């Protein structure tokens, strides 16, 4: 086994500036879209008094959930002492921070009054899970930053394990907190279940790793650095396990709902009568986002890099469908005020609320992804996050 050697990505190249330009532009468009929404008010969006959280929230929650999942690789290396993952730990920590930053930007810019950020940072209601999340997010940034520092600064290497443990525990709480944003909404059938928080944790594993693999493969490809099968195979096997675990939770979620009289409605809605939501569930979330990636990862294509990349992309598309169903479908489904009765009103009681994503919402959401990738691009060039080589002879302890 050769010695592991970390190296910055060469910053003064055409390729680097191209990526910087593309991601910068996507981020800028996102900010402009947000400005447009704020300037006119949310009437220019698909959101309404029935569907109050729209597409930006789907993106924001995806990024925040993926952030904690992206940290997995580092956790496996320092907490569970699996040396095979050690070369990837720095990227894992840095990506986690970048994803969280991207998600928070979207969340902030979608507020009705983003200019009152200072209010949100100074006036706290400690009963609110939102308030706790503000602390969980800032804490996560700080802890992961320290964790990265212990990894990258040799004299502090001996603290990596402790910092890694803290980051690991913190991320579990963080995802529980994110899941609980929905879990506390007793009034809505889709969210009124204790399963939501653990389901979000397992979703974070899968979404975060899929994103991590794409970033890893792309950065090694475009910097012409060697990336061996040893690393990729381990990661893709792990990814497959996570995807299957999410599927398991989804099945349990719907089965428990179907067996409970108060929650049967929402599952019947998603599974069979929900129109677009039913389509998204079966075709996108389950078909394209779960079954197909599993086949690609474990079937005869399992060694093909392009197919592994495709599987990761599909998992992310499935993730968006899943969050869209949870967040938007959960609101579109009518709230039950009079159980067993037929209700109607001028305020859309008793009917499935309509919602169509508007362009500015989508652009704002994509802007968040842009911010994440922009930060990653800058980070890999500025500091030693990526090993110069991840070829098998460098990372595989059994290689000759």
């Amino acid at each position, binding site marked *: 086994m050769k010695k592991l050697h970390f190296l910055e990505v060469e910053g003064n190249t055409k390729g680097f500036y191209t990526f910087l330009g593309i991601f910068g532009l996507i981020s800028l468009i996102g900010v402009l879209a947000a400005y447009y929404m704020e300037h006119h008010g949310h009437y220019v969006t698909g959101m309404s008094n029935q569907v109050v959280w729209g597409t930006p929230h789907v993106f924001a929650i995806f990024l925040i959930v993926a952030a904690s999942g992206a940290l997995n690789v580092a956790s496996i290396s320092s907490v569970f002492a699996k040396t095979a993952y050690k070369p990837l730990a720095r990227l894992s920590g840095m990506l986690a921070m970048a994803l969280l930053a991207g998600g928070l930007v979207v969340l902030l810019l979608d507020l009705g009054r983003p200019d009152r950020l200072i209010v949100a940072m100074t006036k706290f209601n400690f009963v*609110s899970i939102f308030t706790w999340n503000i602390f969980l997010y800032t804490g996560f940034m700080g802890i992961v930053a320290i964790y990265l520092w212990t990894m990258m600064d040799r004299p502090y290497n001996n603290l990596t394990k402790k910092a890694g443990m803290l980051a690991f525990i913190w991320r579990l709480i963080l995802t529980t907190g994110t899941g609980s944003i929905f879990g506390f909404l007793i009034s809505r059938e889709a969210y009124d279940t204790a399963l939501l928080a653990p389901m979000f944790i397992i979703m974070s594993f899968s979404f975060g790793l899929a994103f991590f693999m794409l970033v890893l493969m792309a950065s090694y490809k475009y910097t012409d650095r060697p990336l061996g099968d040893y690393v990729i195979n381990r990661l893709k096997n792990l990814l497959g396990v996570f995807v299957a675990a999410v599927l398991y939770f989804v099945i349990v979620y719907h089965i428990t709902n179907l067996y409970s009289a108060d929650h049967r409605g929402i599952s019947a809605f998603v599974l069979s009568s929900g129109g677009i939501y039913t389509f998204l569930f079966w075709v996108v979330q389950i078909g394209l986002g779960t079954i197909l990636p599993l086949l690609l990862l474990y079937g005869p294509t399992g060694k093909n890099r392009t197919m592994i990349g495709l599987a990761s992309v599909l998992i992310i598309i499935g993730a968006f469908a899943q969050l869209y169903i949870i967040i938007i479908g959960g609101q579109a489904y009518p709230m039950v005020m009079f159980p067993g009765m037929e209700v109607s009103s001028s305020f859309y009681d008793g009917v499935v609320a309509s919602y169509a994503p508007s362009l500015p919402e989508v652009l704002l959401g994509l802007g968040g992804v842009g911010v994440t990738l922009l930060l990653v691009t800058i980070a890999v060039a500025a500091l030693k996050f990526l090993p110069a080589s991840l070829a098998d002879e460098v990372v595989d302890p059994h290689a000759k």
Partner: protein
Amino acid sequence: MTSKIEKEDLSRRNFVFGSIAAAGLTVAPGVMLYQTANARDLSKPVSSKVRWGMLIDTTKDVDWNKCVEACVKEHGLGNEEHSRADQRTQYIRVVDVKNKTTGYSMSLPVMCQHCEKPPCVDVCPTGASMKREDGIVLVDRHRCIGCRYCMMACPYKARSFVHETLTDQKTTTPRGKGCVESCNMCVNRVDNGQLPACVEVSEGAIVFGDLNDPESDISRLLAKHGGKQIRADLKLNPGVQYQGI
């Protein structure tokens, strides 16, 4: 520490709503000089001895739309120019309920139910969504950041988000783009010793009063006939109760 926060909170409450009523004072000093027994002394914090509530008798044959109109007029609602129908503010709406098996149907007005344990207040990150000591739940629109979490949490769909810049507002009901709002039980009127607008036009079908005072009309009616809460199973103990549902 706690008491300091409480004090700050109380003065904020008084500032926000006291200043509104104080504006009324200069317009019509007589109102304040001959304070009725019901009018609140604005120099003192809102008292927790009182809990304002409403009892709505759905069996009475009244046109509930009149209540909606009175609310719209009182708070200057309906002035959106761009918003879609599903984006416009509604503080109070008429809900038609039909029993599928028996065919029995009825209508009732639904507004913020002024919950004793309001989920909208619990979830609000900034404390903008708040419950006054007298049980009235409302949004401090100078503190609301427009996250809309309270709308997600309210089991009665009582809240609306302002989707555009509003002009032509009532000084008694400040509203603003990007903030959430809902029925505030006409605090501006209640603090002046008047009835909420919907109650005034309800031909007696809505009784307003102090739930904590056993001698009040509302308490007597509740003691005699009982009242029902919407989604009582959630145990939020709303201050708005119904008869005949």
